[in-house]
């Protein structure tokens, strides 16, 4: 299952030339594999549709999630929630049809469906 390998889930990534590295958290994610393809469920609390950037480039799927800034009322008393965004990179199985990847986010859980191209689905050949 090539999809599960993560070559560069760094906690930091360059935002651009000359800029300081941006810190990211690696989201907890489940990967399901079926005959038809893969499904990724990634936990990104505080991220909505507008804060998501999903790119496929050179066989790599990159998920970026930016939290929308919450206006906190008052001063922090106790903090556990990290305010950094999320980033995770997956190396894609070549069988995946990258033009048909679908994404939706519901209550902070991103669901990505990555169908396999039809040509690579096993086909039975009848001997005449």
């Amino acid at each position, binding site marked *: 299952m090539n999809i*599960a390998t993560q070559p560069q889930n760094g906690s930091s990534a360059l935002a651009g030339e000359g800029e300081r590295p941006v810190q990211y958290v690696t989201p907890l994610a489940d990967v399901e594999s079926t*005959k038809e393809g893969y*499904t990724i469920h990634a936990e990104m*609390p505080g991220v909505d549709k507008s804060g998501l950037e999903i790119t496929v480039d050179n066989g790599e799927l990159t998920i970026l999630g930016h939290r929308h800034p919450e206006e906190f009322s*008052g001063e922090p*008393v*106790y903090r556990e929630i990290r305010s950094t965004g999320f980033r995770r990179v997956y190396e894609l199985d070549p069988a995946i049809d990258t033009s048909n990847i679908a994404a939706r986010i519901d209550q902070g859980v991103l669901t990505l469906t990555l169908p396999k191209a039809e040509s690579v689905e096993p086909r039975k050949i009848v001997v005449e």
Partner: protein
Amino acid sequence: MNIVRYQRYPQSDLSVTFDRLTTVRNELDRVFESSFGSFFRPLASLNRWNPAVDVYQDNDQFTVYVELPGLKKEEIEISLNGDTLTIGGERKSEANADQGFRTERYFGKFQRSLTLPVPVNSEKVNATYKDGILKVVLPKAEEAKPKQIPVSLN
């Protein structure tokens, strides 16, 4: 303010040992990726799911944020018992994989409790759930609000 992390076992040598074991398991998983994962899976149930909590306060209210991605409103239980706010619930797994599975997310029950340092107006507690973050606003009781008494100088 006193915030109690939920513990399935009382703090004992046993739970400390298990904590260490599960950490070792996590380390192993990282080293061997998922190859050892299924062998050690039974131990995963000892990993406690402690959703992250933030607490803010101002003169009028406390605001509590809890990271609870992927739940339904009905699955979250919020209760206020005296000065103790408890947030709990259960997340059910909807796994559907016939050819393999790699899991990192927590499923099952969770609970966090926190003790508020001053009384709150329980009638006016208000909760919203958006983008996987639960926000509970607890207005302070009138008698607990800091009062400014103007003193006139003669």
